[in-house]
């Protein structure tokens, strides 16, 4: 996986995780991967839907100690 950036969105509430993810992915080129850490429980559904709608791919999702981690590849 070509992870070029890690976004720390821990502690942020809706809509910030999605807004920050959007900003971060704008700086990537197609094929690069963004890793996102968040603690907002809604983010699982939010980021999954967002990635799909924007033509990006959610490669991996993990949850440990209440921290949700996402790896999204820019489409």
């Amino acid at each position, binding site marked *: 996986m070509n992870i070029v950036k890690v976004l720390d969105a821990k*502690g*942020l*509430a*809706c*809509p*910030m995780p*999605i*807004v920050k*993810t*959007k900003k971060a992915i704008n700086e990537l080129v197609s094929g690069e991967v963004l890793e996102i850490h968040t603690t907002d429980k809604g983010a699982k559904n939010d980021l999954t839907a*967002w990635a799909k*709608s*924007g*033509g990006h791919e959610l490669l991996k999702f993990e949850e440990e100690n209440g921290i949700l981690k996402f790896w999204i590849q820019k489409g």
Partner: protein
Amino acid sequence: MTEQKKTTIVLFSGDYDKAMAAYIIANGAAAYDHEVTIFHTFWGLNALRKEENVPVKKGFMEKMFGKMMPRGADKMGLSKMNFAGFGPKMIKDIMKKHNAMPLPQLIELAQEQEVKLVACTMTMDLLGLKQEELLENIDYAGVAAYLADAEEGNVNLFI
């Protein structure tokens, strides 16, 4: 990429909580790459008022309206459990604890994300609000301009 989608929101309410919901959806839609318009009418116009008093020439009724309505987003009351102004204080405290963004910052963020903020000129006249009293970088329009956006809208909300 496919053609850009559109979200339009009519913000009629002057309640802090309802305006917050409108602005959260607007910011989310902007992150979804939608072209977003919030059309402020009636009490929703108060969300766009500057906090400071702007001296403008007004008639008696217009002055009264100006005094009775909240001057800016931060001064707006809650739709439920307002408790004569104590409710908003409580909710803002709770919001801070949960790291939720207060309404004035949500409005700033929306402007940063190029959400189009529109003030309805007809209701501005009714409530006696002048352009000088509202935030910078706002569009002024009427129902036709709103409909032009809404007829192509994928998401249209009235709050």
